[in-house]
């Protein structure tokens, strides 16, 4: 059953072949037996998941109408609230924090009948590109257990890749869904900013954060995204027209203009370059007209992104004061120490670094030179982007410069930030962007590429990927060590 798509599992449940409780017990057991070497899961939600499953079984037996994901297990990144369960953000600060309400997406998933079986590991507060910044455990790539699964949604990616569930949720601020998806042979989608409500997602960079889905199959991803994307009155940046049907019968790409940036390939590994060239050929065979474009502005996207996201993080994380919730240092003897020591003990090095950077770029005397400068460059990038979409309908980009690197291999912060070279411009502009399975390196590591559409072009972006999946074998490949039942 672990190989099944979400739709397959839903079908078996609805046809009466298997109960929701059996499905849930099966996947809980698979995680228990298989996750030791992967470390993708922070908490199994056994009690809650079984209660959900029994209720679904009961409602089904009563003949109730059930949602499109009924009986389907899903992993939730541990920075998204499920009421009554812990939300740790992989941080010591929130080690014992229990979410007091459901995130909007969690409410939508409940209505759709999905079963929350586990919370997935992440870089602390979603800051990182390797999941090595989790305060609790490292996660590894099911394709090669010495390598990282990417980040920050590394647990969500590794878990679906190891087939612990067909679906998961991640969050993407500068590439945190697409980069791990690319490194683990998954689809990972960052929707247009405002499509998916951020209510109940612990904030990192509010003008950039988006929740999005992971799946091994494009139609599963589309189905999940349709469930997630709805207008939410509790998020002031939620779009009024957030929802749209995403599945289209028409998969023809005849005459569509695909922007390709071959110059970027100077910056990537030869395997990634080869995969890119092959994909361009495939899209050409599918009827696309290839439009060469230059994306030299990407050089500026990372510094812009790090200034803005750190500034927003430093203000968002000011709420962790040790007074109202989360960690309070036992050594604090006066109020100032409650703040300073709780934050010193509660936050890890990467989070502190970003708070310091963000505070610096917002501080008096430097705000104009850094923060406002970055906001202005953000507009330049946005305008360059708009101009590109006058010449083409879709952009094709690498997801990462290399396949998955080894754990501990990257220690220089700027080198790590360069992981986001191809993913950080999308969030600055707000456009939809999808990493899809596009091939493998000579050593058998997955390589993902990205499709980036214009603002609100979510459906078209997914349609390109669907056409690609129909004619290529990559998405159906699973990591050999996990393509088996565990006993």
């Amino acid at each position, binding site marked *: 059953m672990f190989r099944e798509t979400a739709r397959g599992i839903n079908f078996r449940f609805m046809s009466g072949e298997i109960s929701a409780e059996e499905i849930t017990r099966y996947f809980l057991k698979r995680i228990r037996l298989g996750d030791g070497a992967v470390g993708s899961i922070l908490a199994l939600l056994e009690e809650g998941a079984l209660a959900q499953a029994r209720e679904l079984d009961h409602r089904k037996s009563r003949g109730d109408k059930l949602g499109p994901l009924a009986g389907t297990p899903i992993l939730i990144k541990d920075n998204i609230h499920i009421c009554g369960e812990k939300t740790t953000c992989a941080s010591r600060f929130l080690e014992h*924090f*229990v979410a*007091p309400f459901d995130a909007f997406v969690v409410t939508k998933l409940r209505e759709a009948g999905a079963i929350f079986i586990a919370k997935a590991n992440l870089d602390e507060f979603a800051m990182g590109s390797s999941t090595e910044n989790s305060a609790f455990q490292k996660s590894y790539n099911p394709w090669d257990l010495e390598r990282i699964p990417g980040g920050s949604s590394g647990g969500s990616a590794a878990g679906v890749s190891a087939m612990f569930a067909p679906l998961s949720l991640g969050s993407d601020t500068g590439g945190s869904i697409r980069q791990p998806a690319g490194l683990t042979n998954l689809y990972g989608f960052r929707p247009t*900013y*405002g499509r998916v409500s951020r209510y109940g997602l612990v904030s990192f960079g509010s*003008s950039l954060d988006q929740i999005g889905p992971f799946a091994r199959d494009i139609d599963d991803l589309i189905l999940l995204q349709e469930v997630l994307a709805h207008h939410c009155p*509790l998020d*002031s*940046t*939620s*779009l009024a027209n957030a929802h749209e049907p995403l599945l289209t019968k028409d998969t023809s790409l005849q005459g569509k203009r695909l922007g390709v940036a071959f*110059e970027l390939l100077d910056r990537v590994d030869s395997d990634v370059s080869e995969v890119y060239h092959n994909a361009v050929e495939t899209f050409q065979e599918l009827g696309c007209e290839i439009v060469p474009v*230059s994306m*030299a*502005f990407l*050089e*500026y996207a990372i*510094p*812009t992104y*790090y*200034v803005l996201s750190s500034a927003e993080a*430093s203000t968002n994380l000011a709420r962790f004061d*040790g*007074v*109202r*919730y*989360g960690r*309070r240092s036992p050594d*604090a003897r*006066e*109020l100032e120490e*409650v703040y*300073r020591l709780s*934050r*010193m003990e509660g936050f890890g*090095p990467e989070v*502190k*670094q970003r708070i*310091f*950077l963000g*505070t*610096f770029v917002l*501080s008096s*005397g430097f705000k104009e*030179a*850094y923060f406002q*400068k*970055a*906001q*202005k*460059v953000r*507009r*330049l990038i*946005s305008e*360059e982007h708009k101009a590109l979409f006058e010449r083409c309908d879709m952009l094709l980009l690498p997801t990462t410069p290399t396949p998955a690197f080894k754990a501990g291999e990257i220690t220089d*912060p*700027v080198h790590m930030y360069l992981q986001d070279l191809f993913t950080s411009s999308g969030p*600055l*502009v707000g456009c939809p962007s999808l990493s899809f399975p596009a091939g493998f390196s000579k050593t058998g590591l997955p390589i993902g590429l990205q499709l980036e559409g214009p*603002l609100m072009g979510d459906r078209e972006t997914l349609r390109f990927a669907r056409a690609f999946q129909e004619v290529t074998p990559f998405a159906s490949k699973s990591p050999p060590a996990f393509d088996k039942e565990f006993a």
Partner: protein
Amino acid sequence: MTPFALHWYNIGIFQGGPDEKARWNVFYGQRTPLLKNVEEELKSLEALCKITVRGEEREKLYSNLTRVLQYVEKLQELDTRHVKPLVLVHEGSSAPLRSDEPLDVMDRATFLKMIPDRIGTMVKVPPVMKDEL
């Protein structure tokens, strides 16, 4: 003194040109170290961040911060004198404000349960005033 000494005279001047790539790669300046008086600067940032950092962690933080700041200085290559800041991507499509009414989003007991230290329904914190005051 200002917490960070920074030299601004090395800013690159952006000059538009027909070739996109050339346009975006203009750089005329020399980069200079951004953090000068380390001890002072870190202390003042620590106070703003409300985070104490010590020992080895402090050194690592400082060296990483210097590295990252040097890297983001790349933005100074671009002339943005006539560019308006972009704050949110969906400009002009702001959501209608909610009416100012209390919503029943979380009950009081749940909220109180999250507080690390309290007396009854009140948040307990250590003294705000120092003894000598």
